[in-house]
Structure formats: structure tokens, C-alpha cells
């Protein structure tokens, strides 16, 4: 590594981060130790999608040895302020449920104890009485007049609606030869970093200040949100991050409500409090991407040129609008025409609230939702007009000569040669060969298809884009917001060694290595000579609201400002060295660890001597250079202006280009999709580190493949979460993810110091829809919904099922069943049994503590078990429709730590020569914890419990069955 060649930047150096991470010496949040006396928090969470909290019984939990504090929503509300909401709407946003729960997993009680085990023991002892409310999980249904309302102040569930118009879309549609429309629903997915959230908070009552250590990733605009919620000025909230992070992909922005919660708990306890999120908590209630329902229509000429787009987007942000939402909807606002030159655009954006987890940053942030609609539409246009999809793409791409290109909705596409990149990808990605493979497969009757996608990948967000959710008049009142402040600090110590600090908060991308390369190039040093620190301490470091790790801003913004800081430092070094070398400053060269005269390498000074001189001999230096060498640079691009009066928004500074194509085969029996060939062409401007860029592409591709084929954050209609574990939220493994072919075409950005653009999110935008287009091509599908479930695709392949049984109504979660038993006792005896509470409870498996609340109503405590899964429930049973001794209805509900359920059973008793046939028909609905973490087993388990009940009934009614009957039963034969 001693020979720099031309430059360090552009080389795939081994990462400086890796030696520690490979040997178990990383310093992630939970590796960093705690102050003496630290307590540990656990959080009780809602099992209901929507319910009123009627009471919280905590006495038993408080009495548990080791428990220090128990905090409910009321306690938190007393010491904090609601988190700010990004739209002008009358609603609050608390980090813990207040009066009502609105999604499964919402925090309800925080327990603080001596360790996590004890804290969880205490959770078991807390009883929350809920009055369930109707839940709504579908964004379209949530807008219906009769839909349950989540936030009473809002009247309905619509949190925001704005319309936008650019060019003359009405005229373009009126003149169009074709109007082509697509309706899509993009599902929720989440990036699920392998490290979950962690927060350690301390409160100092003397200064009324908080010291928080958390694996927060930025943006640090959220620092202001947290401080406001904790009712302190910003300088009373010190926020620090650990040196290493176990991944984020945007998700660790969403730790901030928990920072408020744990900080408030620390204040309540007077001790440091630590909380580490577990995976069940993470899957239920961290940060998930929005689901979106989109109708998109294009005006198209007879030749296939798209003249206008009409967007109608309905964005589902879940149960709360958490900062910075509804940013997912507006992040792409300048890019609603994708990679195409379309001058006329109409947009309606609506934001709706539903009984699902609140949404937040996730890799791709708004891009997957937009491109799924746009690029599915492009394929549909091709089919409608009888064109090849590639031809529709080619006809409409932004022309190279038009760069930099201002889109209809205001983005300034900085650079690119889309046409050349596309043709290069087809050539180097062996498109011709792929066509032959497809034809050969189809000739054998196999289901093979090819998909194409062209997208622009925005990076370096304009901090003002989200204000497009406000009207121009509202924006005027609030004051303009814009820019993307980045900062870097470089200093030389007393022996002249160089340290760099940036507020980039990397989440595993290797920032320290790249920054060392950038700075080494400017200072004529080796990267290993530079020490880079990337964790942040808001009390001591330079930072601004845009600081952090999001919007793919590292390479274009942070690495760029590090270069500017290095250039400032170099200028000072050359000024100091020039008189010593007897040359003008412009003739001083920094190379090989020395400063030397241009053209005379022997006239040289060691770098360390010059760099350390202000520490040791400031008196020898001119006053302006006598301070030690420490340069802080700030950079914000002038192109990122605030949204204007016409709602034109330059939402991002840089725009990479991606062109993907792929070949897939769908198995004719199983409906499984196999990716045979995937090519992804990237133009991310100047590549700073090819190895890391490849890593960003393969990593983004894997996330996208998950979204396309496996991952969906799913809820049942009653608001139950269905994907509460990694056994149901399906992250693809090495068996599922093939290696894509990665190609590059570099068009440096004219707007960034190094010419680099972001690259980490693009495949999350391009790949899901590319795979969807390929599957649509393989099966001739009109509509495609992600993830591409084999069962759904197989239904197309298999056709109608021969003599299919009647299907349950769509979306219904009711479990239905029936059965019967023959009891060797007269009907009257059974009837008496059913009306005798003691006898009835004797047959309810595991029942105790029965109470009769009316002649036909009973309550009891019941322990139910399926295999090793045992739980205690409060059960209420009621008898109705009494028709002695023929029939009755038995209805009941149960609630406990593992979940809740309700059911009704119609029981009929038929005489059979002195014996009785007891027949039952039931329907039951079950939800809660078990539904979230073991939904696969739920129906079967419910059936077991119900059949246990009736088997016990039969046993109780006929305790003296003849020996031969008992023997037959023993042998498993029906008596």
C-alpha cells in the first residue's frame, strides 16, 4: 500500500474498520458498557391493533424485587411534550400509548429493573384492561366515511392532501393517442438491520440536562425534535453514538421515540437506564417503509412518447405521523417523471393513517413505491402499443444533451448519459444471449420472462423538500427551508499526525476508509497515516440538522466536504512551508509524507514537522497561521433551493442512473420465481471505492429481492400483526440471493466536490419492479402484486382447482369448525351439566376460580396449553338461545399474556337410543402475541383447545362408560 499510483481515491483498499470487526472487537451499542448503577428497561406492548386502555394494574409488578420504576403513558405525558408532527393537523404523537393503543406493538408500560430478565418478569405481572375498538389496516378503507377514526382531532383518517400541476397535463391528455393506466398497491417492507435499537440515558437534575447514548443514525434535525419532547433546550441534550453500528438502512432514525421514552424513564428513576430492543419489538414497532396505493395514468403519442403523467398516490403512514413523515411521499417529488423527459405532470398526494406501525426511513425511501408504478406502467404502454419495452424506454429517456436537466416538478438532474449507459448494459450484460435463452425455454413450455427498468436514483436530500407538503402560503409563514449542510474537521496534533472527524454516523459502509483515502490524496500521506473518527457527540462536535447517514449523502456530500477541509488544511501547510522552502506557496507540493518545492524533491520538509509547528513554535509563524492546524469545513450546495411558489422542488442534489434487466423463470408446479440472469448498470458519478460501491449494489439488490419475492410486513384485517418473527418476516438468505452482474458508466456530478453521487439505494428502487416486469412477461400477467407469492403465481399456472371446496370469505380471520361426539348418557343429563357452572368449569381444560355473574354468565381463570405453549387467561362464558334439552349457544372470550380470542359455538343434543349425540359448530377469532409470533400454528392450536373442551364434556357426562368403550377410545377408535 506504499505506492499511491495516481490517487488513493478510486482504489479498493482493504477497510480499516475490518480488523476489529473480524476479531470480535467492534464497539456496537451493547458492547460499550454502562455507568455504575445502570438499570434496564423492558416495554409492555399492545396486543391490539386498536383499543381503549381502561386500566393498568401494576401493583404486583411494583412489588417484584428488583423493580425500580413502572411508567405508563400518563407518567410520560406528565414529563414530556408530544413529538412534533410534520403536517398541520390536530393530532399528537407520543412515544407510548396515551389512553388508546393504535397498533400492535405500541408501548403501553415501561418497566425499569435491575436487569432485563427481572424487567420482563415484571411485564408478566402487569394487567392491562383493554376495550377493543374496530381497527382499519387498509389505506383505502381507512378513508371510508364509516371507518374507525384513529385520531379524534382529525375527524377522519386523512392527514394531508395536496394537488400539484406542472406544465399542461389536461391538454396533453386531451391530445393523446393513447391513455394507459395502472393501479398498484405497494406493500410494506422493512430493512431489519441485524442489530436492533439501543438507548442508554442519564438525567442530571442539577443542570436539567440529558446525556443519551444511542445507535441513532441521523438526520440530526431529529435532535431538535427529541430536545423539544424532553422540554429542554438543545444544549441540554447531549446525544452520542457508538463507534460501530450493526446496520441501519434508514431504520435507526426511528429509535428517536425510544430515546424520549428511556430518557424520561431515567429522569423518573434518577439512575441511568438502558434499553436494548429485541427482535420481536423490532419487527412490530421500529421503522417500516410505507405501503402506498397508486393510480398512474400516462398520455402517450401513437409512437410511444409519454407526454403527460397523472399520479394519484395514497400513502399509508400507519398509526402516527412521526418525523420526518410524510417525507417518504415527498422525497421523490422532483423525480416523478423518473428517467424520462415528460413535461406535463399532475399529482394528487394523500396521507392516510391506519392501525399499523408508524413508518419511517428505510433504504430506497419513497423510490420503490414510485418506480413500481412508473415502470410497471412503461411495460403496460409497450404492451398496449405493441412496442418492445426497451423501445418505450429509449424513446422517453432524458437526452444526454439536455443535461443538467430540470424536470417538470423541479429536480435538476445533474449529469448522465442514459442512452449510452443503456446500450452498454445491453451489450455487456449479454442481452442478445438472454433473448435466446428465453426463446429456448419457452420452446420447451417453460415460463420464462424478461423485465426492464430505468430509474434515476436521487441522493443528498434537500432539507426543504418535505415542506412541499405545505401550501406555498403555509411555507411562506413558516419560513423557507433548504440545503444539505455537511461538515468535516481535520486537525494535526503535536507530532503532526492527522485526525479527521465527520458527522456521518456510518452504519457499516466503510466511511473511515474512504475518508482516509480522500484526505491522504490532498495531504500527500498514506491512508493508514490518517485516523478517522465518525461517531458523534453533539456536545463537542461540529454538526447540523442534515448530519447523519441517510439519503445516500456520504460519497457526494460528506466525502466531498472532507476534501474541502483537507484543501483548507493544505493551504495553511503550504503557507507555513513556503518561506522555509524559499518558494511561493503555490509551488509547494505535498507528496510522500513531505512538503517539497515543485520540481525539486530534495528541497523538502517532513509533513510532521510542518504540521506540528504551530504547537511547538507559534511565535515563528505569522499571526494568521499561529493557531494549531484544525480546519472545519462546511458545505451546502447552492442548487438545493427551497420549494418555490409553483411547488417546483429540487428534492435532491444528485441523480444517479440505473438501468436493469433480468431473466426469470417461474416453476410450473410450485410457482417459485428463480432469477436466472440479473444485470444492473449504474451511473453513480465518480466511483470513490469500487469494492464498497459493489457492496452497496449487492446489498441493495438483496433488500430489493426480498421486497420482490419474500418480505411483507403483514397485518390481518383485525389489526393483528402477522409477521412478528424472522420465521414469518422472510429475509432472503444466501440460498435465495444470486449475484447480479454489475456494470458502471461514470458521469461525474458537476455539483459535488468529488463528482460522486449516492449509490446505496438505487437497486431498492429498480429491482423490485424489474423482477415484477419479468414475471409479468413470463406469465402474461396484467397485474402483479409484491411480494410475488408462489401460491399466487401458481394459481395462474394451475388454473381452477378441480372440485375446490367452498372458500372462506376473503380476508376473514374467523376459524370455523364442527364436530360431534357420542355420549353414553341421556340428553337431560348433559343439559344439566351445561347449566351447572361447577360442572362446566370442571370440563373447561385448566379452569379454576369460577364465578357465576348471572344464571347464564360465568367467569374463570383458565390455563390453556398446546404442547409446551401454556398461558393463563381470563375467560368469560355465556349461555344463550336455550332450547332445553335440544340446543344452546355457548359464547365466550379469553384474554391473557399470550393473546386473546372470542368464539361462539352452537351445541345440539340429539337422542340416540338413550345415548346422546352432542354436535357442535363453532367460529372463533384469535389475536395478540401468539397470532404475531406463531400465526402458523394458531388455527390448529385453537382447534385443539375446542376439541379438548368437547372431549372433556363427553367424559364428564359419561364418566362410567363401559370398559369396552373405554378400551376402544384408548385405541383411538370412535365409540
Amino acid at each position, binding site marked *: 500500500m506504499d505506492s499511491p499510483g495516481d490517487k488513493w481515491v478510486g482504489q479498493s483498499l482493504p477497510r480499516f474498520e475490518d480488523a476489529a470487526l473480524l476479531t470480535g472487537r467492534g464497539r456496537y451499542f451493547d458492547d460499550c458498557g454502562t455507568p455504575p448503577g445502570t438499570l434496564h428497561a423492558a416495554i409492555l406492548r399492545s396486543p391490539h391493533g386498536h383499543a381503549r386502555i381502561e386500566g393498568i394494574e401494576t401493583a404486583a409488578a411494583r412489588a417484584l424485587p428488583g423493580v425500580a420504576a413502572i411508567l405508563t403513558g400518563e407518567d410520560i405525558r406528565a414529563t414530556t411534550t408530544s413529538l412534533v408532527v410534520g403536517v398541520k393537523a390536530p393530532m399528537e404523537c407520543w412515544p407510548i400509548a396515551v389512553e388508546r393503543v393504535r397498533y400492535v406493538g405500541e408501548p403501553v408500560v415501561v418497566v425499569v429493573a435491575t436487569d*432485563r*430478565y427481572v424487567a*420482563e*418478569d415484571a411485564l*408478566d405481572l402487569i394487567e392491562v384492561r383493554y376495550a377493543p375498538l374496530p381497527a382499519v389496516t387498509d389505506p383505502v378503507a381507512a378513508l371510508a366515511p364509516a371507518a374507525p377514526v384513529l385520531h379524534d382531532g382529525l375527524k377522519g383518517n386523512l392527514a394531508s392532501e395536496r394537488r400539484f400541476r406542472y406544465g399542461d397535463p389536461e391538454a396533453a391528455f386531451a391530445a393523446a393517442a393513447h391513455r394507459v393506466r395502472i393501479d398498484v398497491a405497494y406493500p410494506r417492507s422493512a430493512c431489519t438491520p441485524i442489530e436492533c435499537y439501543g438507548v442508554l440515558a442519564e438525567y442530571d437534575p442539577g443542570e436539567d440536562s440529558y446525556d443519551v447514548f444511542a445507535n441513532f443514525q441521523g438526520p440530526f434535525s431529529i435532535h431538535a425534535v427529541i430536545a423539544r419532547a424532553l422540554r429542554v433546550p438543545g444544549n441540554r441534550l447531549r446525544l452520542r453514538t457508538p463507534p460501530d453500528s450493526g446496520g441501519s438502512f434508514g431504520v435507526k432514525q426511528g429509535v428517536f421515540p425510544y430515546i424520549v421514552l428511556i430518557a424520561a424513564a431515567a429522569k423518573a428513576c434518577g439512575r441511568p437506564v438502558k434499553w436494548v430492543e*429485541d*427482535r*420481536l*419489538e423490532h419487527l412490530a414497532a421500529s421503522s417500516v417503509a410505507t405501503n402506498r396505493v397508486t393510480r398512474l395514468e400516462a398520455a402517450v403519442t401513437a409512437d410511444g412518447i409519454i407526454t403527460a403523467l397523472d399520479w394519484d398516490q395514497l400513502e399509508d403512514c400507519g398509526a402516527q405521523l412521526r418525523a420526518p413523515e410524510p417525507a417518504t411521499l415527498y422525497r421523490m417529488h422532483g423525480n416523478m417523471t423518473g428517467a424520462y423527459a415528460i413535461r406535463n405532470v399532475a399529482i394528487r398526494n394523500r396521507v392516510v393513517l391506519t392501525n399499523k406501525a408508524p413508518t419511517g426511513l428505510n433504504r430506497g425511501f419513497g423510490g420503490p413505491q414510485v418506480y413500481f408504478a412508473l415502470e410497471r406502467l412503461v411495460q403496460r404502454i409497450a404492451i398496449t402499443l405493441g412496442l418492445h419495452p426497451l423501445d418505450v424506454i429509449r424513446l422517453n429517456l432524458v437526452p444526454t444533451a439536455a443535461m443538467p436537466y430540470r424536470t417538470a416538478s423541479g429536480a435538476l438532474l445533474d449529469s448522465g448519459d442514459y442512452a449510452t449507459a443503456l446500450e452498454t448494459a445491453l451489450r455487456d450484460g449479454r442481452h442478445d444471449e438472454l433473448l435466446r435463452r428465453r426463446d429456448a425455454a419457452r420452446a420447451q413450455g417453460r415460463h420464462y420472462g424478461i423485465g426492464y427498468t430505468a430509474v434515476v436514483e436521487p441522493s443528498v436530500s434537500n432539507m426543504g423538500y418535505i415542506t412541499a407538503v405545505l401550501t406555498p402560503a403555509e411555507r411562506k409563514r413558516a419560513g423557507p427551508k433548504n440545503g444539505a449542510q455537511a461538515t468535516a474537521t481535520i486537525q494535526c496534533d503535536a507530532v503532526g499526525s492527522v485526525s479527521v472527524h465527520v458527522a456521518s454516523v456510518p452504519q457499516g459502509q466503510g466511511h473511515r476508509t474512504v475518508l482516509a483515502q480522500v484526505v491522504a490524496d490532498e495531504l500527500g500521506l498514506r491512508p493508514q497515516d490518517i485516523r478517522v473518527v465518525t461517531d458523534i457527540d453533539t456536545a463537542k462536535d461540529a454538526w447540523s440538522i442534515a448530519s447523519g447517514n441517510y439519503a445516500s449523502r456520504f460519497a457526494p456530500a460528506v466525502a466531498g466536504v472532507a476534501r474541502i477541509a483537507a484543501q483548507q488544511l493544505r493551504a495553511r501547510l503550504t503557507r507555513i512551508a513556503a518561506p522555509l522552502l524559499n518558494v511561493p506557496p503555490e509551488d509547494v507540493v505535498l507528496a510522500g509524507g513531505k512538503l517539497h518545492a515543485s520540481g525539486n524533491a530534495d528541497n523538502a520538509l517532513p509533513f510532521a514537522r510542518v504540521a506540528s509547528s504551530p504547537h511547538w513554535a507559534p511565535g515563528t509563524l505569522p499571526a494568521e497561521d499561529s493557531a494549531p492546524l484544525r480546519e472545519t469545513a462546511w458545505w451546502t450546495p447552492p442548487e438545493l433551493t427551497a420549494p418555490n411558489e409553483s411547488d417546483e422542488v429540487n428534492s435532491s442534489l444528485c441523480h444517479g442512473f440505473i438501468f436493469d434487466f433480468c431473466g426469470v423463470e417461474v416453476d410450473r*408446479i*410450485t*410457482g*417459485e420465481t428463480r432469477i436466472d440472469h440479473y444485470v444492473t448498470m449504474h451511473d453513480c458519478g465518480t466511483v470513490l471505492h469500487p469494492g464498497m460501491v459493489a457492496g452497496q449494489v449487492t446489498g441493495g439488490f438483496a433488500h430489493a429481492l426480498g421486497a420482490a419475492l*419474500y418480505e411483507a410486513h*403483514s397485518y390481518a384485517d383485525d389489526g393483528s400483526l*402477522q*409477521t412478528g418473527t424472522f*420465521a*414469518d418476516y*422472510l429475509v*432472503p*438468505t444466501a*440460498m*435465495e440471493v444470486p449475484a447480479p452482474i454489475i456494470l458502471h458508466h461514470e458521469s461525474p456530478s458537476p455539483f459535488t466536490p468529488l463528482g460522486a453521487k449516492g449509490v446505496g439505494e438505487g437497486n431498492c428502487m429498480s429491482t423490485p419492479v424489474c423482477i415484477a416486469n419479468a414475471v409479468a412477461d413470463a406469465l402474461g400477467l396484467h397485474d402483479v402484486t409484491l411480494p410475488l*407469492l*408462489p*401460491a399466487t403465481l*401458481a*394459481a395462474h399456472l*394451475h388454473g381452477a*382447482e*378441480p*372440485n*375446490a*371446496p367452498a*372458500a*372462506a370469505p376473503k380476508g376473514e380471520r374467523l376459524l370455523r369448525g364442527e364436530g360431534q361426539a357420542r355420549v353414553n348418557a341421556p340428553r337431560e343429563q348433559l343439559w344439566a351439566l351445561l347449566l351447572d357452572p361447577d360442572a362446566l368449569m370442571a370440563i373447561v381444560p385448566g379452569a379454576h376460580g369460577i364465578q357465576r355473574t348471572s344464571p347464564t354468565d360465568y367467569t374463570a381463570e383458565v390455563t390453556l*396449553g*398446546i*404442547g*409446551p*405453549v*401454556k*398461558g393463563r387467561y381470563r375467560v368469560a362464558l355465556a349461555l344463550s338461545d336455550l332450547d332445553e334439552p335440544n340446543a344452546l349457544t355457548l359464547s365466550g372470550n379469553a384474554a391473557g*399474556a*399470550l393473546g386473546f380470542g372470542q368464539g361462539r359455538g352452537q351445541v345440539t343434543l340429539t337422542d340416540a337410543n338413550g345415548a346422546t349425540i352432542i354436535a357442535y359448530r363453532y367460529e372463533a377469532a384469535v389475536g395478540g402475541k*401468539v397470532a404475531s*409470533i*406463531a*400465526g*402458523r*400454528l394458531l*388455527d*390448529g*392450536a385453537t*382447534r*385443539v383447545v375446542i*376439541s379438548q373442551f368437547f372431549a372433556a364434556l363427553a367424559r364428564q357426562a359419561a364418566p362410567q362408560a363401559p370398559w369396552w368403550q373405554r378400551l376402544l377410545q384408548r385405541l*383411538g377408535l370412535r365409540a
Partner: protein
Amino acid sequence: MKPAKFDYVQAEALDEALATLRAEGEGARIIAGGQSLLPMLNMRLARPAVLVDIMHIAALAEATATTETLRIGAAVRQAALLARPSLHPLLAAALPWVGHAQTRSRGTLCGSVAHADPSAEIPLVLLALQGEILLRSARRARRVAATDFFTGMMQTARHEDEMIEAITIPQPRTGEGYAFREVGRRHGDFAIVACAAAAHATGVRLAIGGVADHPAARELPADSAQWDDALDAFAHALDARDDLHATATYRRQLVRKLGRQVMQEAAACRA
């Protein structure tokens, strides 16, 4: 996500384990490899009063083969069996589908049988091959045929005071053929449909997992012309249901189509 409290007994001898089961009743739970039990403990779905660790009972750690049967003790880990130079071809085909290498190295075959997950592979193989489960309590020992053992969702014929001492599987016989196929969302996931077939001279025994509440097996005729009707009837009898990952229709269709493929493969292996 931490377990609730429990006592722990590391049994050194079978009698010690059985005595604890007898004394504690349903409060006791056997732990062998723990690969099904620990997730349930961590999620506090299971809360036994005492765990009885049987992995130090030397007598249970043996798998012994005779010409007739393979007897697999309760402490035999899946990876250990898979590493044997010769293994029943159906077990050899099914075992790599059990979890992942990192769980097979701990998990036991008998533990999977005791857990009785409806998607599990080892119960399916046991059913296809008409194996037996050897149960033992402090009072007595008994054998239960696999066909009688799995009674419902995680429900078996085992009594509270009994533990599985071993399972036995008939050794492959000449003139028989075996095949195994499984469809899940990802590799290593719970099966949506798993098929195990044993073909013999007079028919094919097909076992299906992942569809009904417990694995189920049927004898189907040897004549492949009758398979479609027989598979259709089998598919309907399994009472498939929709879940997050697959529809009931899909499951029935896979029973018909994949079931047929597996039967063909098994029949072809007879030769």
C-alpha cells in the same frame, strides 16, 4: 425476550429423568437439543417449572442398527445421524431439510418427534416408514406406532409422565423405493408442503406434512393411473387452510402435483 424462571436438572441416568417427570407432571419439560424449545422459552410461550436435560444420559446417545431396524436414542443429534456413512435413504433425503446446519448440530431427532410440529420432516419420515416411538415413564415402557402418535397440532399420544426414549425405523428393504420433496418459502423454512413416499410392490405409502394439523400418510395404489384420483381425495382429506405464506388451494394443488412427482420418483427408485 428472556425466558421465565425454571429449575434445571441435568439427569445422569434415565431413572433420574423419569422420576422428575413423575414428580412434576406437566410442569416438567424434557430438554434435549433445545432447538424447538428454546425459542418458545425465550418468547415466554413455554414456562416449565423445571427443565430436565437428558443429553448427559449415555444410553440415550446411541443410534443402533440391526438388519431390521434403526433405533435412534433420544439424545442423538440430527447432525450426528446425518454424518453416518450409511443411512436410510429417506432419512438421508429429509434430514438436510430440517432447520439449518447450525440447528441440526444441536437438535435431536426425538426432540423433533416430541415437538410434533405439523411441518416437521422427521415425523413425516417416521410416518412414511411406519416407524415406532418408544415411550417410557417411571412405571412402564410402551411402543406407539407413528400412525397413532401424532394426534394434532403439537399433540401426541405421549402422556405427561412419559418421555421418548427412542424412535425406530425399519431399514430399507429390497424392492422398495423412497423419495422426499419439500416446498417452503425459503430454504430451511417450515414446509408449506412436504412429501415423503415409500414405494413397494403393492403400492406407494405417501406421507404429507405442512398441510393438516399433523402429518398424515396414506397407502395409494401401485397403478399410477389411479394416482390422480387418490391424490385428489388425499388432498381434500387434509383440511388445508390459508395462512400468510400459502393458500389452502396451493397446498392441495401441491399435494396433487408434487405428490405425484414424489411417488413417481419413489417408484422409479424401486428398480
